[in-house]
């Protein structure tokens, strides 16, 4: 019996779809190609701090399908950038909205998406004050891409940063995970979970304001676990802060329908995208107050503790499993690929 294995070639010359997945491939693209050219330093945050008070962030949205249970590309683009600003403790004050439109997009659809973006901005109390519109030829884009940019003003009483978690901090999540990613996958592939699963897309700036009101500077780190899921956010904070994060598997709120969809598709809920929940690292003294403040708002009503920061190996995320063992929680490599069986 021969025991053999080939030497494979890994694609290193072209951008793969997986480079956009929020996992390890994307980190490589950023650290190897993009940030060196920009001479960028410091931890990668959801939004940049300019001077002492101004917070600035931008994000592009390419989601397919453009309409999905729980939202559409317009409302998603508004919520996403508001949330990126909020994760730095900012009060969002204005947004821009830019479109790249493929020739042939029905005007009615563009109107509907714009109406949805406007409604989302109005509901969040953050005006859209400028924008841009470009049209490209048929086939040069997939229908519609949306970019939103936002500015905000930092609250003076807290400095949340991915690099600010310290041992002893308690790790909280604001609500159930995995809803957005499974809703999109279901709608895109016609998998039939769509009746049961809606995206959690929603603004989180009021929630963050309430948390900082209750916990002040004890709110050390905030992240909304979008692409790459909760596992990526926890790893980014563990890495940027140089700490070990330990969570308890059974305390992570995974809705039954998300667990079922992930089970069928062979996906890990910890790697699935969210658009309406956040993970927070809070000093133990303020945890009760922060949790109470979160639970008083609809977007935080099921806020819960999932773990703590320890003196373990820096940059490591460890999950304690239901049977009482432990494992390391890693980031996704590239795209999440549904399993065969």
């Amino acid at each position: 019996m021969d025991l053999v294995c080939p030497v494979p070639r890994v694609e290193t010359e072209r951008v793969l779809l997986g480079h956009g997945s929020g996992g390890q491939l994307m980190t490589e693209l950023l650290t190897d190609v993009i940030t060196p050219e920009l001479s960028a330093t410091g931890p990668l945050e959801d939004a940049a701090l300019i001077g002492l008070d101004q917070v600035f962030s931008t994000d592009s949205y390419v989601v397919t399908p453009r309409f999905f249970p729980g939202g559409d590309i317009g409302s998603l683009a508004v919520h996403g950038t508001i949330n990126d600003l909020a994760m730095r403790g900012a009060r969002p004050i204005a947004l821009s909205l830019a479109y790249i439109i493929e020739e042939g997009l029905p005007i009615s659809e563009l109107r509907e998406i714009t109406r949805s973006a406007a409604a989302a901005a109005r509901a969040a109390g953050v005006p859209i004050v400028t924008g841009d519109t470009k049209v490209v030829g048929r086939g040069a884009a997939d229908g519609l891409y949306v970019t939103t940019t936002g500015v905000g003003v930092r609250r003076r009483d807290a400095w949340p940063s991915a690099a600010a978690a310290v041992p002893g901090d308690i790790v909280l999540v604001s609500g159930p995970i995995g809803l957005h990613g499974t809703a999109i996958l279901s709608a895109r592939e016609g998998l039939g979970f769509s009746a049961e699963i809606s995206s959690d897309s929603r603004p989180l700036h009021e929630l963050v304001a309430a948390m900082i009101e209750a916990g002040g500077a004890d709110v050390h780190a905030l992240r909304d676990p979008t692409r790459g899921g909760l596992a990526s956010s926890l790893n980014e904070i563990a890495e940027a802060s140089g700490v070990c994060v330990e969570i308890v598997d059974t305390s992570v709120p995974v809705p039954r329908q998300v667990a079922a969809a992930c089970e069928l598709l062979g996906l890990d809920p910890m790697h699935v995208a969210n658009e309406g929940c956040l993970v927070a690292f809070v000093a133990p003294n303020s945890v009760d107050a922060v949790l109470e403040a979160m639970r008083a708002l609809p977007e935080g009503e099921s806020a819960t503790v999932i773990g703590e920061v320890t003196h373990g190996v820096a940059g490591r995320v460890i999950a304690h499993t239901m049977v009482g063992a432990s494992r390391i929680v890693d980031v996704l490599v590239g795209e999440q690929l549904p399993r065969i069986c």
Partner: protein
Amino acid sequence: MKYLDEYRDPVLARRLLAELHATATRPWTIMEVCGGQTHTIVRQGIDELLPAGIRMIHGPGCPVCVTPLEIIDKALAIAARPDVIFTSYGDMLRVPGTSGDLLGLKARGADVRVVYTPLDAVRIAHENPGRSVVFLAVGFETTAPANAMAVLHAAASGVDNFSVLVSHVLVPPAITALMDEPDTQVQAFLAAGHVCAVMGWTEYEPIALKYQVPIVVTGFEPLDLLEGILMAVRQLEDGRAEVENQYVRAVRRSGNAAAQDAVRTVFQVTDRTWRGIGPIPASGLALSAEFAGFDAEQRFSVGDVVTVESPLCIAGDILRGTRVPTDCAAYGRACTPRTPLGAPMVSSEGTCAAFHNAGRGLEM
């Protein structure tokens, strides 16, 4: 989902573990056949909590891992053709062939698409009459019925631009080959619940008898695995060698007759080479003569693609269960899920990837 939470109950899990500790009086070596079971065992750390001396060997039941390199190279050759839409289950796309993988080929312009069922591939063929649509039909007895149904559906509805690249494998011949190895350490098997949901377990009865090896048909949730291991240990302690069924909510002794009929109609048993293990007689399925017209290998003349594997990683030892991933010098260094040197590092069901994703071998 019903049947999910009930099988992830921490209290019941600890009770089963306590019972295992009370039952085991000697060291035993048990192989879980299926990659899905390996995934659960390693993710939950079940193997680390077993009584000292109870060792789990992670078997060859990951379809991604045992699909021969030659099939991957043939898939790459077919997918590179401009007239082809190549369709596959997701986790085959990152399996390294000699010259790259299907994801890389896609980035270079090939039309490679992930589907969730082979019937989607037939639908794509129906919608693209001017192009050839090929589905990569791999996997164990679990995926064979759906693939057979796709071929039957294409034949019945006259979708003649659809074809399949087939590399199906069968569990019982692999178990037999493992037991025939002179240095085999396996004393009991956890058979793959989903495979048995299709095939039943009658074909395992002669194996248990001939090799005097207990075989427990087992599910995939943490409590399934713990109970399956407990049932196997009880048999070993009692000196019994029977086929037992832990996965009673899904498996009957005779299996699923309709699924078996579809498989028998479309496929015939053939010799198959298992990646990392080598050729095993009568261990796979190929299209039967009646459906040979759907064979992508013949349609695209890639039958003569010959691939030579070079001996660099220990995937074979791992698939046979004689060594574990952390024994490999490349594990976690040259070989990671980002840069897999061997197929067991590609799928999350592969033993090496399951180990790596759980951080095995790293300092906690």
